[in-house]
Protein backbone atom coordinates (compact mmCIF):
# COMPACT_ATOMS: atom_id res chain seq x y z
CA UNK A 1 0.00 0.00 0.00
CA UNK A 2 2.73 2.46 1.02
CA UNK A 3 4.80 1.57 -2.00
CA UNK A 4 1.76 2.09 -4.20
CA UNK A 5 1.31 5.59 -2.79
CA UNK A 6 4.99 6.45 -3.21
CA UNK A 7 4.96 5.22 -6.79
CA UNK A 8 1.76 7.14 -7.36
CA UNK A 9 3.43 10.34 -6.12
CA UNK A 10 6.44 9.78 -8.35
CA UNK A 11 4.24 9.01 -11.37
CA UNK A 12 2.11 12.09 -10.72
CA UNK A 13 5.19 14.31 -10.67
CA UNK A 14 6.55 12.71 -13.84
CA UNK A 15 3.21 13.18 -15.60
CA UNK A 16 2.68 16.69 -14.22
CA UNK A 17 -0.66 15.52 -12.85
CA UNK A 18 -1.60 17.97 -10.07
CA UNK A 19 -4.82 16.22 -9.10
CA UNK A 20 -3.18 12.84 -8.73
CA UNK A 21 -0.25 14.34 -6.80
CA UNK A 22 -2.63 15.94 -4.31
CA UNK A 23 -4.61 12.72 -3.93
CA UNK A 24 -1.49 10.62 -3.33
CA UNK A 25 -0.16 13.15 -0.83
CA UNK A 26 -3.46 13.05 1.07
CA UNK A 27 -3.47 9.24 0.90
CA UNK A 28 0.02 9.16 2.40
CA UNK A 29 -1.11 11.33 5.32
CA UNK A 30 -4.21 9.15 5.84
CA UNK A 31 -2.00 6.06 5.81
CA UNK A 32 0.14 7.68 8.51
CA UNK A 33 3.22 7.50 6.31
CA UNK A 34 6.29 9.54 7.19
CA UNK A 35 6.04 12.84 5.25
CA UNK A 36 9.78 13.08 4.68
CA UNK A 37 9.78 9.62 3.10
CA UNK A 38 6.85 10.59 0.90
CA UNK A 39 8.70 13.68 -0.29
CA UNK A 40 12.03 11.94 -0.92
CA UNK A 41 10.80 8.55 -2.14
CA UNK A 42 7.80 9.94 -4.00
CA UNK A 43 8.07 13.54 -5.21
CA UNK A 44 11.85 13.80 -5.40
CA UNK A 45 12.16 10.41 -7.03
CA UNK A 46 9.71 11.54 -9.70
CA UNK A 47 11.54 14.81 -10.26
CA UNK A 48 14.80 12.92 -10.55
CA UNK A 49 13.30 10.93 -13.42
CA UNK A 50 12.14 14.18 -15.04
CA UNK A 51 15.63 15.61 -14.69
CA UNK A 52 17.20 12.57 -16.34
CA UNK A 53 14.67 12.70 -19.18
CA UNK A 54 15.52 16.38 -19.73
CA UNK A 55 19.22 15.56 -19.81
CA UNK A 56 18.55 12.93 -22.51
CA UNK A 57 16.34 15.27 -24.54
CA UNK A 58 13.25 13.19 -23.82
CA UNK A 59 11.35 15.97 -22.06
CA UNK A 60 11.36 19.74 -22.27
CA UNK A 61 10.69 22.78 -20.13
CA UNK A 62 6.89 22.93 -20.60
CA UNK A 63 6.63 19.38 -19.23
CA UNK A 64 9.08 20.18 -16.39
CA UNK A 65 6.97 23.18 -15.37
CA UNK A 66 3.92 20.89 -15.17
CA UNK A 67 5.93 18.44 -13.05
CA UNK A 68 6.91 21.32 -10.79
CA UNK A 69 3.25 22.25 -10.35
CA UNK A 70 2.41 18.68 -9.37
CA UNK A 71 5.36 18.42 -7.00
CA UNK A 72 4.57 21.73 -5.32
CA UNK A 73 0.93 20.72 -4.88
CA UNK A 74 2.00 17.52 -3.10
CA UNK A 75 4.64 19.34 -1.05
CA UNK A 76 2.08 21.87 0.19
CA UNK A 77 0.11 18.98 1.67
CA UNK A 78 3.11 17.03 2.99
CA UNK A 79 5.28 19.80 4.45
CA UNK A 80 3.08 20.63 7.49
CA UNK A 81 3.42 16.96 8.50
CA UNK A 82 7.23 16.90 8.50
CA UNK A 83 8.62 15.92 11.90
CA UNK A 84 11.27 18.29 13.17
CA UNK A 85 13.77 15.53 13.79
CA UNK A 86 13.01 13.58 10.66
CA UNK A 87 15.40 15.37 8.39
CA UNK A 88 19.11 15.88 8.47
CA UNK A 89 20.21 19.52 8.27
CA UNK A 90 20.07 20.20 4.54
CA UNK A 91 22.92 21.82 2.68
CA UNK A 92 22.19 25.44 1.92
CA UNK A 93 22.63 26.97 -1.51
CA UNK A 94 22.46 30.67 -2.25
CA UNK A 95 21.32 30.94 -5.85
CA UNK A 96 20.82 33.89 -8.19
CA UNK A 97 21.23 35.46 -11.61
CA UNK A 98 24.06 37.97 -11.73
CA UNK A 99 23.64 41.72 -12.08
CA UNK A 100 22.10 43.10 -15.24
CA UNK A 101 20.47 39.83 -16.24
CA UNK A 102 16.73 39.18 -16.00
CA UNK A 103 16.68 35.70 -17.56
CA UNK A 104 15.68 33.22 -14.89
CA UNK A 105 14.12 30.17 -16.52
CA UNK A 106 17.41 28.27 -16.21
CA UNK A 107 17.96 29.41 -12.64
CA UNK A 108 14.42 28.38 -11.69
CA UNK A 109 14.93 24.92 -13.18
CA UNK A 110 18.14 24.57 -11.18
CA UNK A 111 16.27 25.62 -8.04
CA UNK A 112 13.57 23.07 -8.70
CA UNK A 113 16.03 20.22 -9.20
CA UNK A 114 18.10 21.20 -6.16
CA UNK A 115 15.07 21.41 -3.89
CA UNK A 116 13.84 18.08 -5.13
CA UNK A 117 17.25 16.66 -4.26
CA UNK A 118 16.94 17.88 -0.68
CA UNK A 119 18.98 21.08 -0.76
CA UNK A 120 17.68 24.20 0.95
CA UNK A 121 17.77 26.91 -1.71
CA UNK A 122 17.92 30.60 -0.89
CA UNK A 123 16.76 32.10 -4.17
CA UNK A 124 17.92 35.69 -4.60
CA UNK A 125 16.14 36.00 -7.95
CA UNK A 126 17.45 37.86 -10.98
CA UNK A 127 19.62 40.94 -11.54
CA UNK A 128 21.40 40.34 -8.22
CA UNK A 129 24.33 42.63 -7.29
CA UNK A 130 27.50 41.17 -5.80
CA UNK A 131 26.81 42.64 -2.34
CA UNK A 132 23.51 40.79 -2.12
CA UNK A 133 25.20 37.43 -2.78
CA UNK A 134 27.81 38.22 -0.13
CA UNK A 135 25.21 39.27 2.45
CA UNK A 136 23.10 36.15 1.84
CA UNK A 137 26.08 33.79 2.10
CA UNK A 138 27.08 35.41 5.38
CA UNK A 139 23.60 35.59 6.84
CA UNK A 140 22.58 32.06 5.84
CA UNK A 141 26.00 30.53 6.43
CA UNK A 142 25.52 28.91 3.04
CA UNK A 143 27.46 25.86 1.87
CA UNK A 144 27.28 26.67 -1.84
CA UNK A 145 26.92 29.87 -3.84
CA UNK A 146 25.48 29.15 -7.31
CA UNK A 147 25.48 31.79 -10.04
CA UNK A 148 23.57 31.85 -13.30
CA UNK A 149 23.87 34.16 -16.33
CA UNK A 150 22.47 34.10 -19.83
CA UNK A 151 24.30 37.15 -21.11
CA UNK A 152 27.94 37.85 -21.80
CA UNK A 153 27.45 41.29 -20.26
CA UNK A 154 26.30 39.85 -16.93
CA UNK A 155 28.58 36.82 -16.62
CA UNK A 156 31.49 39.20 -16.09
CA UNK A 157 30.32 39.78 -12.50
CA UNK A 158 30.91 36.16 -11.57
CA UNK A 159 34.61 36.52 -10.68
CA UNK A 160 33.74 39.40 -8.33
CA UNK A 161 30.99 37.42 -6.62
CA UNK A 162 33.21 34.34 -6.28
CA UNK A 163 36.08 36.36 -4.82
CA UNK A 164 33.87 38.27 -2.39
CA UNK A 165 31.87 35.29 -1.07
CA UNK A 166 35.11 33.39 -0.52
CA UNK A 167 36.45 36.39 1.38
CA UNK A 168 33.56 36.31 3.86
CA UNK A 169 33.40 32.50 3.98
CA UNK A 170 36.59 30.79 2.74
CA UNK A 171 35.07 27.31 2.96
CA UNK A 172 32.17 28.07 0.64
CA UNK A 173 32.08 26.29 -2.69
CA UNK A 174 30.92 28.08 -5.82
CA UNK A 175 29.33 26.87 -9.00
CA UNK A 176 28.31 28.66 -12.18
CA UNK A 177 26.17 27.93 -15.22
CA UNK A 178 24.24 29.46 -18.08
CA UNK A 179 24.27 29.83 -21.85
CA UNK A 180 27.47 31.81 -22.45
CA UNK A 181 29.53 29.92 -19.83
CA UNK A 182 31.88 27.05 -20.52
CA UNK A 183 33.99 24.86 -18.27
CA UNK A 184 37.04 26.86 -19.33
CA UNK A 185 35.40 30.19 -18.51
CA UNK A 186 34.19 28.82 -15.16
CA UNK A 187 37.74 27.82 -14.33
CA UNK A 188 39.07 31.21 -15.37
CA UNK A 189 36.49 32.84 -13.12
CA UNK A 190 37.68 30.75 -10.15
CA UNK A 191 34.48 28.72 -9.76
CA UNK A 192 34.72 25.34 -8.06
CA UNK A 193 32.10 23.80 -10.32
CA UNK A 194 30.36 24.27 -13.64
CA UNK A 195 26.95 22.94 -14.65
CA UNK A 196 26.16 23.20 -18.34
CA UNK A 197 22.44 23.14 -17.60
CA UNK A 198 19.84 22.37 -14.91
CA UNK A 199 19.92 18.64 -15.52
CA UNK A 200 23.48 18.30 -14.22
CA UNK A 201 23.36 20.98 -11.52
CA UNK A 202 22.35 18.55 -8.77
CA UNK A 203 25.21 16.19 -9.54
CA UNK A 204 27.71 19.05 -9.57
CA UNK A 205 26.34 20.42 -6.28
CA UNK A 206 26.45 16.98 -4.62
CA UNK A 207 29.99 16.34 -5.84
CA UNK A 208 31.12 19.73 -4.58
CA UNK A 209 29.59 19.25 -1.14
CA UNK A 210 31.08 15.77 -0.90
CA UNK A 211 34.53 17.10 -1.79
CA UNK A 212 34.54 19.69 0.98
Amino acid at each position, binding site marked *: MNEEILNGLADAVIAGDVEKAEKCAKDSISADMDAYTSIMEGCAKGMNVVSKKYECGETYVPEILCSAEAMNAAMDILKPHLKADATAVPKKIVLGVTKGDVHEIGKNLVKLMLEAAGFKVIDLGKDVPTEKFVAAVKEENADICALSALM*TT*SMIFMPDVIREVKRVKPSIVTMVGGGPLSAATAETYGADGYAK*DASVAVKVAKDLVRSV
Partner: protein
Amino acid sequence: MFGLMTGQKIDRIPVSPFAMGYAAKVCGFSIGDFYANAKVNFRSQLMAADMHGYDSSPMYGYASIGAWEFGGKIGFPYEVGHGAPYVIEHPVETPEDVDRLEIPDPTRAGSNPISMEVAKQCNALGLPAVFQVGGFITFAGNIMEPARMLLWMIRKPELVHKVISKVLAFQKLTADWYIDTFGPEKCMVFSGGATESNKLISAKQFETFTLPNEIAINKYVLDKGIHSVLMHPCADQNANIPHYRKIREECGWRGRYVWNFGPETPLEKQIEMFGAHDIIGGNVDPPSFQTKSFDEVIMLCKDNIERGMKNPSGYILMPGCELPPLTPPINVHAMMTAARKFGSFE
Protein backbone atom coordinates in the same frame (compact mmCIF):
# COMPACT_ATOMS: atom_id res chain seq x y z
CA MET B 1 27.47 41.06 -48.49
CA PHE B 2 25.11 42.73 -50.96
CA GLY B 3 27.32 41.34 -53.74
CA LEU B 4 26.93 37.79 -52.47
CA MET B 5 23.20 38.16 -52.02
CA THR B 6 22.71 39.53 -55.53
CA GLY B 7 24.97 36.96 -57.17
CA GLN B 8 27.84 39.32 -58.07
CA LYS B 9 31.49 38.30 -58.11
CA ILE B 10 33.15 39.00 -54.77
CA ASP B 11 36.83 39.00 -53.80
CA ARG B 12 36.48 37.53 -50.30
CA ILE B 13 33.83 36.08 -48.06
CA PRO B 14 31.69 38.78 -46.44
CA VAL B 15 31.98 39.40 -42.71
CA SER B 16 28.94 40.27 -40.62
CA PRO B 17 29.71 40.32 -36.89
CA PHE B 18 26.08 40.86 -35.82
CA ALA B 19 27.39 43.78 -33.79
CA MET B 20 24.68 45.65 -31.89
CA GLY B 21 25.69 46.66 -28.35
CA TYR B 22 29.32 46.28 -29.42
CA ALA B 23 28.84 48.92 -32.13
CA ALA B 24 27.52 51.37 -29.55
CA LYS B 25 30.34 50.76 -27.10
CA VAL B 26 33.16 50.88 -29.62
CA CYS B 27 31.84 54.22 -30.90
CA GLY B 28 31.52 55.69 -27.41
CA PHE B 29 27.73 55.50 -27.11
CA SER B 30 25.73 53.78 -24.37
CA ILE B 31 23.93 50.54 -25.19
CA GLY B 32 20.76 52.14 -23.80
CA ASP B 33 20.90 54.96 -26.35
CA PHE B 34 21.67 52.43 -29.06
CA TYR B 35 18.24 50.85 -28.58
CA ALA B 36 16.31 53.97 -27.55
CA ASN B 37 17.59 56.37 -30.20
CA ALA B 38 17.43 55.58 -33.92
CA LYS B 39 20.19 58.04 -34.82
CA VAL B 40 22.64 56.51 -32.34
CA ASN B 41 21.64 53.05 -33.51
CA PHE B 42 22.20 53.80 -37.17
CA ARG B 43 25.30 55.94 -36.79
CA SER B 44 27.18 53.61 -34.47
CA GLN B 45 26.53 50.56 -36.66
CA LEU B 46 27.70 52.47 -39.71
CA MET B 47 30.79 53.84 -37.95
CA ALA B 48 31.79 50.47 -36.48
CA ALA B 49 31.42 48.80 -39.88
CA ASP B 50 33.50 51.53 -41.48
CA MET B 51 36.19 51.35 -38.78
CA HIS B 52 36.61 47.57 -39.00
CA GLY B 53 35.76 47.24 -42.69
CA TYR B 54 33.08 44.61 -42.22
CA ASP B 55 30.15 44.18 -44.55
CA SER B 56 26.87 44.27 -42.63
CA SER B 57 24.49 47.18 -42.82
CA PRO B 58 22.60 48.68 -39.86
CA MET B 59 19.41 47.11 -38.58
CA TYR B 60 17.26 47.46 -35.49
CA GLY B 61 16.03 44.54 -33.42
CA TYR B 62 16.32 42.78 -30.09
CA ALA B 63 15.33 39.52 -28.43
CA SER B 64 12.67 40.93 -26.09
CA ILE B 65 10.52 42.09 -29.01
CA GLY B 66 6.76 41.80 -28.51
CA ALA B 67 6.14 42.94 -24.95
CA TRP B 68 6.31 46.69 -25.59
CA GLU B 69 4.63 46.42 -28.97
CA PHE B 70 1.55 44.77 -27.42
CA GLY B 71 1.21 47.21 -24.53
CA GLY B 72 3.74 46.04 -21.94
CA LYS B 73 6.82 47.85 -20.70
CA ILE B 74 10.51 47.34 -21.41
CA GLY B 75 13.64 48.81 -19.90
CA PHE B 76 16.51 50.10 -22.00
CA PRO B 77 19.95 48.75 -21.13
CA TYR B 78 21.54 51.71 -19.37
CA GLU B 79 22.87 49.85 -16.31
CA VAL B 80 26.21 48.06 -16.09
CA GLY B 81 25.59 44.43 -16.92
CA HIS B 82 22.72 45.11 -19.29
CA GLY B 83 23.25 44.05 -22.88
CA ALA B 84 19.87 44.59 -24.52
CA PRO B 85 16.34 45.79 -23.76
CA TYR B 86 14.51 43.70 -21.18
CA VAL B 87 10.87 43.24 -20.27
CA ILE B 88 9.57 44.99 -17.17
CA GLU B 89 5.87 44.27 -17.64
CA HIS B 90 4.31 41.56 -19.81
CA PRO B 91 0.97 42.53 -21.36
CA VAL B 92 -0.52 39.09 -20.66
CA GLU B 93 -0.62 37.84 -17.07
CA THR B 94 -4.01 36.11 -16.92
CA PRO B 95 -6.06 34.05 -19.37
CA GLU B 96 -8.52 36.97 -19.60
CA ASP B 97 -5.70 39.24 -20.80
CA VAL B 98 -5.39 37.09 -23.92
CA ASP B 99 -8.86 38.04 -25.13
CA ARG B 100 -8.25 41.67 -24.22
CA LEU B 101 -5.00 41.76 -26.20
CA GLU B 102 -5.46 44.05 -29.19
CA ILE B 103 -3.47 43.93 -32.40
CA PRO B 104 -1.45 47.13 -32.23
CA ASP B 105 -1.10 49.80 -34.88
CA PRO B 106 2.31 48.96 -36.37
CA THR B 107 3.17 52.61 -36.98
CA ARG B 108 2.99 53.36 -33.25
CA ALA B 109 3.64 50.04 -31.55
CA GLY B 110 6.59 49.83 -29.14
CA SER B 111 9.93 49.88 -30.90
CA ASN B 112 8.45 49.90 -34.42
CA PRO B 113 8.83 53.68 -34.90
CA ILE B 114 12.52 53.46 -33.88
CA SER B 115 13.06 50.53 -36.21
CA MET B 116 11.37 52.44 -39.06
CA GLU B 117 13.58 55.47 -38.44
CA VAL B 118 16.71 53.30 -38.69
CA ALA B 119 15.31 51.73 -41.87
CA LYS B 120 14.72 55.17 -43.41
CA GLN B 121 18.30 56.18 -42.75
CA CYS B 122 19.51 52.92 -44.30
CA ASN B 123 17.27 53.42 -47.29
CA ALA B 124 18.65 56.91 -47.83
CA LEU B 125 22.10 55.36 -48.28
CA GLY B 126 20.84 52.58 -50.54
CA LEU B 127 21.05 49.97 -47.77
CA PRO B 128 18.25 47.50 -47.05
CA ALA B 129 15.34 48.55 -44.83
CA VAL B 130 15.26 45.73 -42.29
CA PHE B 131 12.27 44.74 -40.20
CA GLN B 132 11.74 41.88 -37.75
CA VAL B 133 9.11 39.17 -38.10
CA GLY B 134 8.86 35.45 -37.27
CA GLY B 135 10.22 34.01 -34.03
CA PHE B 136 6.65 33.46 -32.85
CA ILE B 137 7.50 31.54 -29.69
CA THR B 138 9.96 34.23 -28.65
CA PHE B 139 7.54 37.01 -29.53
CA ALA B 140 4.63 35.36 -27.68
CA GLY B 141 6.86 34.52 -24.72
CA ASN B 142 7.74 38.17 -24.36
CA ILE B 143 4.04 39.03 -24.39
CA MET B 144 2.99 36.28 -21.95
CA GLU B 145 6.22 35.88 -19.89
CA PRO B 146 8.30 32.95 -21.12
CA ALA B 147 7.70 30.51 -18.24
CA ARG B 148 3.97 31.20 -18.24
CA MET B 149 3.78 30.62 -21.98
CA LEU B 150 5.78 27.39 -21.73
CA LEU B 151 3.45 26.10 -19.02
CA TRP B 152 0.36 27.13 -20.97
CA MET B 153 1.64 25.25 -24.01
CA ILE B 154 0.49 22.19 -22.09
CA ARG B 155 -2.13 23.52 -19.67
CA LYS B 156 -3.87 26.06 -21.93
CA PRO B 157 -2.57 25.57 -25.49
CA GLU B 158 -5.53 27.38 -27.03
CA LEU B 159 -4.39 30.61 -25.33
CA VAL B 160 -0.87 30.29 -26.73
CA HIS B 161 -2.31 29.71 -30.22
CA LYS B 162 -4.54 32.75 -29.78
CA VAL B 163 -1.64 35.04 -28.83
CA ILE B 164 0.48 33.72 -31.68
CA SER B 165 -2.31 34.34 -34.18
CA LYS B 166 -2.42 37.96 -32.99
CA VAL B 167 1.35 38.18 -33.39
CA LEU B 168 1.03 36.90 -36.96
CA ALA B 169 -1.62 39.53 -37.73
CA PHE B 170 0.61 42.25 -36.25
CA GLN B 171 3.65 41.07 -38.20
CA LYS B 172 1.70 41.16 -41.47
CA LEU B 173 0.68 44.75 -40.74
CA THR B 174 4.30 45.62 -39.95
CA ALA B 175 5.44 44.03 -43.21
CA ASP B 176 2.81 46.03 -45.12
CA TRP B 177 4.00 49.25 -43.51
CA TYR B 178 7.60 48.67 -44.58
CA ILE B 179 6.69 47.47 -48.05
CA ASP B 180 4.40 50.47 -48.61
CA THR B 181 7.12 52.83 -47.38
CA PHE B 182 10.12 51.49 -49.28
CA GLY B 183 8.91 49.00 -51.87
CA PRO B 184 9.58 45.27 -51.42
CA GLU B 185 12.85 45.26 -53.34
CA LYS B 186 14.38 47.68 -50.80
CA CYS B 187 13.32 45.65 -47.76
CA MET B 188 14.99 42.81 -45.92
CA VAL B 189 13.42 40.58 -43.30
CA PHE B 190 15.14 39.58 -40.07
CA SER B 191 13.58 36.59 -38.35
CA GLY B 192 14.69 34.85 -35.22
CA GLY B 193 14.38 34.08 -31.57
CA ALA B 194 15.87 32.06 -28.74
CA THR B 195 12.76 30.73 -27.02
CA GLU B 196 12.37 28.32 -29.94
CA SER B 197 15.57 26.64 -28.68
CA ASN B 198 15.43 22.90 -28.04
CA LYS B 199 16.85 23.62 -24.59
CA LEU B 200 13.32 24.86 -23.90
CA ILE B 201 10.85 23.27 -26.28
CA SER B 202 10.67 20.09 -28.35
CA ALA B 203 10.64 19.94 -32.12
CA LYS B 204 7.06 18.71 -31.84
CA GLN B 205 6.08 21.82 -29.86
CA PHE B 206 7.85 23.95 -32.49
CA GLU B 207 5.86 22.17 -35.18
CA THR B 208 2.56 22.60 -33.32
CA PHE B 209 2.83 26.19 -32.20
CA THR B 210 5.06 28.03 -34.61
CA LEU B 211 5.69 26.18 -37.89
CA PRO B 212 2.36 27.03 -39.58
CA ASN B 213 2.86 30.67 -38.64
CA GLU B 214 6.46 30.71 -39.85
CA ILE B 215 5.31 29.31 -43.18
CA ALA B 216 2.52 31.88 -43.31
CA ILE B 217 4.72 34.92 -42.65
CA ASN B 218 7.46 33.74 -45.01
CA LYS B 219 4.92 33.15 -47.79
CA TYR B 220 3.36 36.52 -47.04
CA VAL B 221 6.54 38.57 -47.42
CA LEU B 222 7.72 36.58 -50.45
CA ASP B 223 4.34 36.97 -52.14
CA LYS B 224 4.63 40.70 -51.55
CA GLY B 225 7.91 40.71 -53.46
CA ILE B 226 10.53 40.75 -50.69
CA HIS B 227 13.62 38.90 -51.81
CA SER B 228 16.09 38.96 -48.90
CA VAL B 229 15.58 37.17 -45.61
CA LEU B 230 18.01 36.68 -42.72
CA MET B 231 16.94 33.75 -40.56
CA HIS B 232 18.49 33.49 -37.10
CA PRO B 233 17.32 30.35 -35.29
CA CYS B 234 19.03 31.27 -32.04
CA ALA B 235 20.77 28.83 -29.65
CA ASP B 236 20.41 25.04 -29.99
CA GLN B 237 17.72 24.40 -32.60
CA ASN B 238 19.16 21.22 -34.08
CA ALA B 239 15.91 19.32 -33.63
CA ASN B 240 13.95 22.09 -35.37
CA ILE B 241 16.07 22.09 -38.53
CA PRO B 242 13.74 19.81 -40.56
CA HIS B 243 10.93 22.27 -39.80
CA TYR B 244 13.00 25.21 -41.01
CA ARG B 245 13.67 23.29 -44.20
CA LYS B 246 9.93 22.71 -44.48
CA ILE B 247 9.42 26.50 -44.42
CA ARG B 248 11.71 26.82 -47.43
CA GLU B 249 10.10 23.90 -49.23
CA GLU B 250 6.60 25.27 -48.64
CA CYS B 251 7.76 28.60 -50.08
CA GLY B 252 9.30 26.90 -53.12
CA TRP B 253 12.79 27.98 -52.11
CA ARG B 254 11.96 31.47 -53.34
CA GLY B 255 14.05 34.48 -52.30
CA ARG B 256 17.63 34.79 -51.09
CA TYR B 257 17.90 33.39 -47.58
CA VAL B 258 20.81 33.60 -45.16
CA TRP B 259 20.83 31.11 -42.27
CA ASN B 260 22.59 32.08 -39.07
CA PHE B 261 22.19 29.23 -36.58
CA GLY B 262 23.66 29.14 -33.10
CA PRO B 263 27.11 27.59 -32.65
CA GLU B 264 25.47 24.32 -31.54
CA THR B 265 24.51 23.57 -35.16
CA PRO B 266 27.37 22.26 -37.28
CA LEU B 267 27.93 24.05 -40.59
CA GLU B 268 27.92 20.69 -42.37
CA LYS B 269 24.36 20.05 -41.21
CA GLN B 270 23.26 23.47 -42.44
CA ILE B 271 24.92 22.93 -45.81
CA GLU B 272 23.19 19.56 -46.13
CA MET B 273 19.78 21.08 -45.38
CA PHE B 274 19.97 24.46 -47.14
CA GLY B 275 23.20 24.61 -49.14
CA ALA B 276 21.72 23.94 -52.56
CA HIS B 277 19.78 27.22 -52.40
CA ASP B 278 20.74 29.35 -49.42
CA ILE B 279 23.67 31.24 -47.97
CA ILE B 280 25.08 30.06 -44.64
CA GLY B 281 26.16 32.72 -42.17
CA GLY B 282 28.00 31.19 -39.38
CA ASN B 283 28.55 30.47 -36.72
CA VAL B 284 31.54 31.08 -34.46
CA ASP B 285 30.85 30.60 -30.73
CA PRO B 286 29.88 34.16 -29.60
CA PRO B 287 31.28 34.19 -26.03
CA SER B 288 34.67 33.24 -27.45
CA PHE B 289 34.96 36.70 -28.98
CA GLN B 290 34.80 38.12 -25.46
CA THR B 291 36.87 35.55 -23.60
CA LYS B 292 39.52 34.31 -26.04
CA SER B 293 42.70 35.86 -27.42
CA PHE B 294 43.27 37.33 -30.89
CA ASP B 295 45.16 34.21 -32.01
CA GLU B 296 42.46 31.90 -30.69
CA VAL B 297 39.71 33.87 -32.45
CA ILE B 298 41.70 33.75 -35.69
CA MET B 299 41.87 29.96 -35.43
CA LEU B 300 38.15 29.65 -34.62
CA CYS B 301 37.32 31.82 -37.64
CA LYS B 302 39.74 29.90 -39.87
CA ASP B 303 38.07 26.62 -38.99
CA ASN B 304 34.64 28.13 -39.61
CA ILE B 305 35.70 29.66 -42.93
CA GLU B 306 37.22 26.42 -44.23
CA ARG B 307 34.05 24.51 -43.43
CA GLY B 308 31.62 27.25 -44.45
CA MET B 309 33.19 27.91 -47.84
CA LYS B 310 32.12 24.43 -48.86
CA ASN B 311 28.56 25.73 -49.10
CA PRO B 312 27.74 25.92 -52.83
CA SER B 313 25.40 28.90 -52.37
CA GLY B 314 27.80 31.08 -50.44
CA TYR B 315 29.05 31.75 -46.95
CA ILE B 316 29.30 34.74 -44.62
CA LEU B 317 31.59 34.73 -41.60
CA MET B 318 29.40 35.49 -38.57
CA PRO B 319 29.16 34.69 -34.88
CA GLY B 320 26.34 32.27 -34.01
CA CYS B 321 24.44 35.12 -32.36
CA GLU B 322 24.97 38.77 -31.48
CA LEU B 323 28.60 39.68 -30.95
CA PRO B 324 29.11 40.15 -27.20
CA PRO B 325 28.99 43.89 -26.50
CA LEU B 326 32.16 43.62 -24.39
CA THR B 327 34.21 42.02 -27.16
CA PRO B 328 37.70 43.55 -27.35
CA PRO B 329 37.93 45.39 -30.71
CA ILE B 330 41.03 43.41 -31.59
CA ASN B 331 38.87 40.28 -31.83
CA VAL B 332 36.62 41.89 -34.44
CA HIS B 333 39.82 42.72 -36.26
CA ALA B 334 40.65 39.01 -35.93
CA MET B 335 37.48 38.19 -37.88
CA MET B 336 38.52 40.58 -40.64
CA THR B 337 42.08 39.24 -40.70
CA ALA B 338 40.83 35.66 -40.91
CA ALA B 339 38.39 36.52 -43.71
CA ARG B 340 41.11 38.24 -45.76
CA LYS B 341 43.67 35.51 -45.13
CA PHE B 342 41.54 32.38 -45.41
CA GLY B 343 38.41 33.55 -47.21
CA SER B 344 39.83 35.21 -50.30
CA PHE B 345 38.64 34.22 -53.78
CA GLU B 346 41.67 35.71 -55.56
